[in-house]
């Protein structure tokens, strides 16, 4: 159906014998790709996961991400699909201003630019 896909590699840093996986003997080199119920599974270490953080697909949200005003940083459904990241941020900021006078999610709007903007949430909701 589609292109062949690589086999995910299980990477483990072993610092101590107790870190050895139980099933290492079944999968020399540590690569595991199986859907066997209760059997082998897919592991990823932090370095691999972080290496995918900036991959082209991850910069924009999934196309089916629902619109949640305070949360998903995407334009309202009726608006244009292909916006750049900056446009999205601008759009989101203005949506928040309109829809949500109580909740301030925008760091730029933080009155005194407090660290992480945490103190601004001390109102009772």
């Amino acid at each position, binding site marked *: 159906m*589609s292109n062949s896909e690589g086999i995910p590699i299980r990477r483990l840093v072993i610092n101590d014998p107790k870190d050895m996986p139980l099933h290492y003997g079944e999968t020399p080199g540590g690569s595991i790709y199986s859907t066997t119920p209760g059997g082998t*599974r*897919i*592991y990823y270490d932090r370095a691999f*996961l972080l290496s995918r953080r900036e991959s082209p*697909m991850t*910069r924009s949200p999934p*196309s089916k991400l629902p619109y949640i005003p305070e*949360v998903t940083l995407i334009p309202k459904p009726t608006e244009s699909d292909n916006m750049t990241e900056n446009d999205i941020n601008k759009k989101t900021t203005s949506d928040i201003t309109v829809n949500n006078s109580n909740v301030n999610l925008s760091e730029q709007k933080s009155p005194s630019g407090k*660290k992480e903007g945490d103190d601004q949430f001390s109102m009772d909701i």
Partner: protein
Amino acid sequence: MIDGGDDSDYLSASETLNDDNYVPQTAAKIRHTLSLNKEKIAPLATEWTFWLDNQKSKFTTKEDYEAGLKKIFCVQTVQEFWSVFNNIPTPSRLPNRVSYHLMRKNRKPLWEDQENENGGIFTYRCPKDKTNTVWQELCLAAIGEQFSEDDSDDVVGISVQSRDGMQDLVQIWNSNPSEEAQKIIDEKVISLFPNISFPIKFYKANSSHANFEAGKQQKSKYSS
């Protein structure tokens, strides 16, 4: 529904707002785009679902709590995970008592969910300046199955809740309240964050909460 994974563009034309359509279609799209970029998709061991939880008050019924829950997205691959994670605000930007949950498969972040009722939650109070880091690292450890030392699905959720005051809450859901399972979680947390001290931490079985609302049919199943 399951067969909808083919790269068939016409699907979108007739598509309804049905959750079951989301994942196969999105996954197919991501696969297509990645094949153009020569990057391999990296499937996760299981699906994980991001939830938003807009809890209005501390004492709430299961129904009120459920009403405040919104499914953000169900991810099947590492790329989909980042695609969602990178495009929602960091936890430090959430209002007081608003939470994110990343739950294994389709279970809801509810004590009473059939898949959670026999499990429990390890809660850590987390210094606010560390919340974003801890949330990200715990999510990575969860989807990378770094908690799963014995090929089990014991860790079934990660939650973060923004709180007024000095600390936020970070929680790890598991399916097995044994002391051994608790110890594995805590040791993993300590090894992930050797330089962060969590002022309070405790484990609580989901069914032991005062306002746990056990399903009646389940109870009778075991009581007769």
